[in-house]
């Protein structure tokens, strides 16, 4: 078998801790690998990967900071910043509560930071000043900004709530569907909100008319969702292939999903759409990382099996670098620029 892309044009390190999340910084040059032991490792294509003890306990979520570093939430109740130079600061501290979700939008000049703590979604401005605290009927399990940073969605029991971040009075649009919703994403064009569910399914709401969209048939839990650039496709984990639902021409209702990069009986655990092209990367339970091209239906192997389930996957904003992490603590960055 030909060598995989990681061996040819990548770099990897053993971080010896479950990689909870991986995300590039805003300029796309560094990766923040968030680890289960509370550390953030800052990875790059060359040189050492410094490790910083950001949380006193476990790290639960990581996202790009508005400046060049990373934001993370932990079971130490902290919403923390880790700068590229290793400067660690607290945006907020919530006592013994877990900070389970984090999200950001914009840049250091104008942006928003969001995190969830129990049933509340808390919004901060770019300087870390708390703007508002938005309550939900049960614990918030996922949060997502829309592409313009105007709205933010939160998933919970019984559906999702869609808020206007800067509204003077906070009345969410309630998107209801019975069951436990475990994560959420908003269509890049603002057309729909989709949640992952406890029951091996996705649920969506078309925002123009509230039409329900049921996407089921997964053999395993869904959880990782990623939109193609303009929202024509929604990629999802939870099957032994990347499952892509079409969001065009009235879809996904009444249209079968596209299945790419199947590995028989091995569950796809993470998906990440390329930021510009119709290419989607995927990680699998056996440690494989692959990339599939929607038009040509070609599949490229990025990383061979092994090293534990793929638990983190991210592109840089330029779409030139792909980062991954696994449950056994292997983390890597692959250079995909044309040579």
């Amino acid at each position, binding site marked *: 078998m030909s060598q995989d892309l990681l061996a040819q044009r990548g770099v990897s390190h053993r971080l010896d801790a*479950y990689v*909870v999340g991986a995300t590039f910084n805003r300029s796309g040059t560094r990766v923040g690998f968030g680890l*289960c*032991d509370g550390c953030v490792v800052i990875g790059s294509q060359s040189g050492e990967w410094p490790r910083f003890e950001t949380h*006193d*306990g*476990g790290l*639960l979520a990581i996202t790009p900071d508005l400046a060049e570093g990373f934001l993370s939430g932990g*079971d130490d109740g902290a919403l923390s910043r880790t700068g590229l130079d290793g400067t660690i600061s607290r945006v907020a501290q919530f006592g*013994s*509560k*877990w900070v*389970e979700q984090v999200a950001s939008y914009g840049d250091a000049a104008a942006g928003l930071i969001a995190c969830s703590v*129990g*049933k509340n979604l808390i919004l901060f401005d770019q300087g870390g000043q708390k703007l508002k605290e938005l309550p939900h009927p*049960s*614990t918030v*399990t996922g949060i997502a900004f829309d592409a313009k940073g105007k709205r933010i969605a939160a998933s919970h*029991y019984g559906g999702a709530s869609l808020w206007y971040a800067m509204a003077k009075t906070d009345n969410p649009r309630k998107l209801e569907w*019975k*069951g*436990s919703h475990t994560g959420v994403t908003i269509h890049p064009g603002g057309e729909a909100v989709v949640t992952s*569910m*406890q*029951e091996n399914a996705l649920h969506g709401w078309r925002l123009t008319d509230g039409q329900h969209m049921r996407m089921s048939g997964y053999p*395993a*839990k869904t959880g990782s969702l990623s939109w193609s650039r303009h929202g024509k496709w929604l990629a999802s984990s939870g099957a032994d292939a990347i499952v892509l639902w079409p969001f065009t021409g009235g879809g996904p209702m009444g249209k079968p999903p596209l299945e790419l990069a199947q590995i028989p009986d091995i569950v796809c655990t993470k998906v990440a759409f390329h930021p510009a092209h119709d290419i989607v990367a995927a990680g699998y339970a056996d440690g494989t990382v692959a990339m599939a091209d929607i038009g040509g239906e070609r599949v490229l192997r990025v990383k061979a099996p092994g090293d534990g389930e793929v638990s983190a996957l991210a592109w840089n904003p330029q779409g030139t670098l792909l980062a991954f992490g696994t*449950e056994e603590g292997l983390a890597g960055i692959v250079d995909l620029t044309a040579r």
Partner: protein
Amino acid sequence: MPDLIPVTVLTGYLGAGKTTLLNRILTEQHGKRYAVVINEFGELGVDNDLVVESDEEVFEMNNGCACCTVRGDLIRIITALLKRRGRFDGIIVETTGLANPAPVAQTFFIDENLRAKTRLDAIVTVVDALNLPRRLLDSPEAAAQIAFADVVVVNKTDLVSAEELAAVEAQVREINQIVTILRSERGDVPIDQILGRGAFDLDRVLEFAPDFLTDDSHLHNVDITSVSFSVKRPIDPARFTKWIGALFAERAIDMLRTKGILAYPGEDRRYAFQAVHEIADGAFIGPWKEGPRESKIVFIGRNLNRPQLRRGFEACQVDE
């Protein structure tokens, strides 16, 4: 594959002595580390970074199963804890005094991730000898907590006479005739009799059952009871599956726990099964001992119609 992490569910109404027992588990030198999910820090006087506070959030699964309620908060919290599984040897889930233990137990059978990485070890219920009779009258959860238990710790035995204690234990036994009863004064029971019991392991089903009562006691002051039957002819698997399936479909809410050991025709291994409501689990376990092979079944539940259940089970036998 790494070993599955054992999970112990600790229940009991307020004031029974649950927190005292939990404090002992967390402070005693037994060489094991436990992650603990509790409802509120309250009086827990232990500084432990593996203690997690959680609001009990029960939801119904959308799978058409009437009593398929699970604890979503446990799924989230334990999934996160399992990422650091090297830091602890087991998990203890403490419930509030008003909680029904079923959703907690069902969570570990229904969520595929927890099912793959953890195993339910036992449901341990703490009651206090002085107040149990009153609690059984004023709180329906008190009886449910005993019904679901694998171990009942009868605490504060120093506050009652020997006769009162015997009456309390008879009440516990009437609700759940296969439960293990431990006595304590201040939660001072040996930790190894509470943790690591493997009560949900199929090869230990009914291991702790006393001799089956031929005549059930008739205290009749609680609506939850247990009934048990044994039959001598082998059980026809198809008949049994059909009967128990129909029974669970119709009566799932009333059937709290069921355990059985069955002799199938021409099969040298015992077939064991157990269920929490209608969520059942069964497998062949070790061989029968020499001698007659009796199939046994125990039902713990509400409004159990003993003659009807007996006839149903007897009709599952192969024809003479």
